[in-house]
């Protein structure tokens, strides 16, 4: 029954017994809609906000960080196995890559002068925070190792630093996988199982490439093998990733950069263990290809993620599927 009678008690501010209900007195009746074949979105706009990260900075950081970390490890290994020139090239390269990556990281900030705020806290929930501390631990050692090697001073400390950097290097080379996977960007997040291996492989290949490029043939054997190993891991990881992600992997499958990355790495690795053993020029070329390949891979992954974030279907379809699955399971019980 309607409550429109005049009552003097009703204070204007009292909430009524009920709220207005939409269209309740008309003739029509709302039919439950048949589930839509495709999916709806709000004027085709992305559900997620587009990452503000700039490709040169962040994709560049992914590449350089990986390169630095892997180089330090390779350098340490070379040092311990008596390959001084391979070790030196690794240390120097690591330091340069480190410099570049830190620059990229800071350059991408909205407020670069506030970079130090990264050190306000330590948050395991934030790969970037963890990464910052990894950099903090790794950076000085890598720097010290390179400096000692080049200057020839404090050899002991230098060696210790090289080993330290070599041990922390892998963390730097792989945490970046967590960095991008720990987002709502579908193509990144869903790939978190393979991404660390993809990055590790890519970094290893790049380090190998650099070794081939910088070190004399007689010392470059580990670099050549690293290139092969890295490339292999990278390819396997990439293939598994694309298979597991299914439709979500579309942006990756479409990515020319990723294809180029694989091709370059494969070519570089092969050339490395064949002609690269004998010809310095070939080794240089192979090394360059591997570096380029690794860079392509990182930029490719970055782009693919962006693409998946900007198209609502990559966000909505998997979630719909997930809901349908959950509903089906509930019904089974």
């Amino acid at each position, binding site marked *: 029954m309607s409550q429109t009678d005049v009552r003097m008690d009703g204070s204007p501010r009292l909430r009524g017994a009920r709220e*207005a*209900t939409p269209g309740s007195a008309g003739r029509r009746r709302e039919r439950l809609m048949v589930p839509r074949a495709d999916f709806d979105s709000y004027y085709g706009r992305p559900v997620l906000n587009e990452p503000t990260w700039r490709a040169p900075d962040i994709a560049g950081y992914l590449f350089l960080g990986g390169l630095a970390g892997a180089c330090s490890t390779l350098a340490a290994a070379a040092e311990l196995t008596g390959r001084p020139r391979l070790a030196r090239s690794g240390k120097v390269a690591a330091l340069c890559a480190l410099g570049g990556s830190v620059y990229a990281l800071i350059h991408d900030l909205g407020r670069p002068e506030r970079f130090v705020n990264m050190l306000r806290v330590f948050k395991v929930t934030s790969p970037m925070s963890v990464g910052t501390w990894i950099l903090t631990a790794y950076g000085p050692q890598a720097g010290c190792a390179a400096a000692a090697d080049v200057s020839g001073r404090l050899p002991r400390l230098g060696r210790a630093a090289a080993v330290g950097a070599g041990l922390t290097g892998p963390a730097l080379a792989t945490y970046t996988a967590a960095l991008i996977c720990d987002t709502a960007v579908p193509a990144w997040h869903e790939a978190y199982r393979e991404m660390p291996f993809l990055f590790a492989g890519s970094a290893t290949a790049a380090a190998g490439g650099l070794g081939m490029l910088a070190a004399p043939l007689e010392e470059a054997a580990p670099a050549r093998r690293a290139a092969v190993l890295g490339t292999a891991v990278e390819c396997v990881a990439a293939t598994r990733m694309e298979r597991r992600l299914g439709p979500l992997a579309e942006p990756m499958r479409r990515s020319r950069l990723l294809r180029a990355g694989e091709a370059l790495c494969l070519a570089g690795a092969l050339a490395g263990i064949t002609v690269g053993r004998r010809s310095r020029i070939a080794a240089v070329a192979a090394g360059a290809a591997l570096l380029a390949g690794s860079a392509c891979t990182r930029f490719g992954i970055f782009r693919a993620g962006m693409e998946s974030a900007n198209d609502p279907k990559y966000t909505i379809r998997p979630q719909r599927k997930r809901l349908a699955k959950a509903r089906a399971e509930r019904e089974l019980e």
Partner: protein
Amino acid sequence: MDFAWPLLRQLTGGDRSGRGSAVKSARTAGLRARTAEADRVVKSVCPYCAVGCAQNVYVREGKVVQIEGDPDSPISRGRLCPKGAATLQLTTASERGDRALYRPPGAADWQEIDLATAMDMIADRIIATRRDTWEWDRDGMRVARTLGIASLGGATLDNEENYLIKKLLTALGVVQIENQARVCHSSTVVGLGTSFGRGGATTFLQDLQHSDCVVIQGSNFAEAHPVGFQWVMEAKARGAVIIHVDPRFTRTSALADLHVPIRAGSDVAFLGAIINHVLDNDLYFHDYVVAYTNAADILRQDYRDAEDLDGLFSGFNQESRLYDDETWQYEGAQIAPASGARDVDYARRVGHLPPGRVEVLGGTGLPLEGTPERDETLRHPRCVMQVLRRHFARYTPEMVERVCGVPRHLFEQVCRHLTENSGPDKTAEFVYAVGWTQHSDGSQFIRAASILQLLLGNIGRPGGGIQALRGHASIQGSSDVPTLFNLLPGYIPMPHAHENERLRDFLHADAPNKGCWAHMPAYMVSLLKAWWGESARADNDYRFGYLPRLTGSHSTYDTVLAQLDGTCKGYLLLGENPAVGSANTKMQRLGMAALDWLVVRDLNLIESATWWKDGPEIETGELRTADIATEVFFLPAACHTEKSGSFTNTNRLLQWHHQAVEPAGDARSDLWFMYHLGRIIREKLAGSRDPMDAPVLELTWDYPVEGELAEPSSEAVLAEINGWDEHGPLSGAGELKDDGSTVCGCWIYCGVYADGVNRAARRRQGSEQDWIAAEWGWAWPANRRLLYNRASARPDGSPWSERKKLVWWDADASVWTGYDVPDFEAGKSPSYRPPPDATGTAALSGTDPFIMQADGKGWLFAPSGVVDGPLPTHYEPQDSPVANPLYGQQRNPARKLYPHEHNRYQPSGDEPGASVYPYAVTTYRLTEHFTAGGMSRRTPYLAELQPEMFCEVSPALAAERGLVHGDWATIITARNAIEARVMVTDRIPSLRLDGRVLHQIGLPFHFGPNGLATGDAANELAAISLDPNSHIQEVKALSADIRPGRRPRGPALPELVRAYRRRAGVDERTGTEV
């Protein structure tokens, strides 16, 4: 432990993950709400629409830091719409110019000018123009006026400011005083006034919650008055049915139960058909109708209805295009209306009559009315009820389909809901706005609703009534304290020119001698005393002769033509933007270009202030800046937070807003402007012997000023509006006398300052009061919130029902009592019957609820006061793609036309060339903007919400004309062409009527070239064709063509318009036939 380094806090404190207290910065810890830090909270009222939402203005160190809703308000309950929420930006925006500017004749740009100099120059120009254009008489009749000066604006200003504008300009002999009320709701005053006695909404917003059925028609309630709409939602929550009848599916429809699409301009046919349905099936509230309406009154033998004359009523003169309403009168009675055209019977009533009626010569106050014959069985063939049945017989559901394009099943649902929810236990309410008023027969739209609500017994009862939603903060106030040419304060008619007219003749002719209006002599004399004080004495007719006289219409549109023909040379724009907001904006600008001088007072540089350098005519080459000799003054105005005063909201409620801060730079209130302008003019004229200066020099103009800006005291002005006698402030209009012993500036506001207390400033928390909240502000008349509420009780004084009781007769105490203030003499028993010779309110019986009416009845049939017919009749709009299916008479025969090179009319219906303009166009508001945009298009937060002019079209029309969503379209009429972005939407359905499909085009009217949100003004397209009662323009229904692409630039634009005219064969006669 509290470390500076968050990491240490994290490691040592309770927030190990570093996501809470540990990472809080010092700044965050120190955050304080600026509302809590404010030095003062100033009580104010929103300056936009007329809902009158209360605002709290927070001031810190002399600056306004925040403005938000005041939860104490029983009306708004602390809520604000986007515009209200943007008032902080509106009032504190840096874009707001605060320097006085001057543009010399022919100059290419502004130059800054000292404010005092500007005031002095303006005063000089007013004096000079007045001297040059003064006329003592016209056609041998005294007029004592100037047509050389006009003013426009007032609805955005305070009541006190309107009062000073009207007082000073009238004393200067200016009659062309107008404001937004003319172009928005003037037809409301006629429609509601003639039907019930008062020209204001019959109810108030909070009462919507008691309605069982709310019909919103001719209004986009949710969009134009969002905060008021909360009361519709309240009603819906309580079980009411919400119906929205509108050409478009709007944000109002989205929340309604029922949306009925209707062809713009066909509402009379729709309402007429409901009336027919109610009469046919005897669904009317019999006891109410018999007792409280004029249904039983018997009309004269010689009355002929539109039914008999194919759309005309008896008394029409083909030459003058005017009606003589004598044949519309009751049998054996002459009756004068409470509103509308009250002077038309002057000759007859004062006594210049055909021989044989000598007994009334000289008009010595004989009771002219007599008592009309009644047949309470309602069977007499000439009784109003029978006439009504005949008149509306042809308004059938089939006609609704043919005329309105409303499918039968929808129409029947509306009839069912409306009738099922009316009667003793239930009440239905109509809500309308300018969708009804802005038509060439707008007054009749409102008359139709009035008739229907009277038949259903919904007037004067809770949850019933007719809610007129008005669109400016004080547009009701600027009608009550009118800056309107045809009214004096309190709806006293402005005198027309007559041969040797005396005050007595005027009062005798323009006021009935029964009902409250019989006391008009007291109101009028008190007003004259308020204006001319000591100088106003009985022996000089209380200076009645000082009032300038009207000769015909002096509406804002007549003023435009007067400007074009050089009669009007000076123009004051006071917070109105006709270059965007009035019909045929090109004519508005060309009119201003013909002026000698123009004064614009506004918050910022609106289109009406800058047309001479960047107006559309400059672009098309029709005007050259160097050739424009108009001197232009721009004076920055103070906004509502910078002055004190009262707004009257849409329900006649006066609310006081207090000054929060001083205006910056040269910004001043209009109270300041008017007062000091008057002071300077009086100083300049001091000592003049010229009789034309006497009204100015003898004018009471001594208001106390405050502060270093010498701001006049608005409270002192309010005190004068309220009035006083030798004992002090008056407490009600009942105390007014016609012997010169009382002073009162506006009789209906008498009581707002009773006992020297500013009742408009009362702010007792709504939560501490009942839903009527009588102690929040003050409503005219006499703080009654629901008008004619005597009708909420049976004739015997007991409530119609327990559910809907409001006021009733307490027999023991023999007094009227109830929740609201009774709109009736408190002690008048229901059984009271007037003696035959009684006059005034004593002449009304204890069962006559409509106390302003001469017969105390609600008028189903208007025997007088409505100049285009006693009953609403469907006429097509001036420019219509449809031929009138109901009558041979296509258009309103009495409509007012202004043929002019720039104001051509279009062929309609079946006329050759009509197909050149095949689509119906309607204009409307958006929530995000305000009227002509002066208060919203420069406000960034509002501009971004609706950044551009657009047009709404149906998918069908888009397909027919190749319009692409998001692209541009050009809309063309015989006046002008505009461009707009295309919005293809199902919300503006194409209609099926009379075997054809009619497409409609929707155009928001806010946009113009200046500001952030820009676009062509929809009013460029509209013609000046007016409702003859109210002189309101028809902008809610036109016809036009639309085509894809942007409009041409430069001279090609007028050429395009001319090409269309040629194709349609438009000439100076087109559309002007009766």
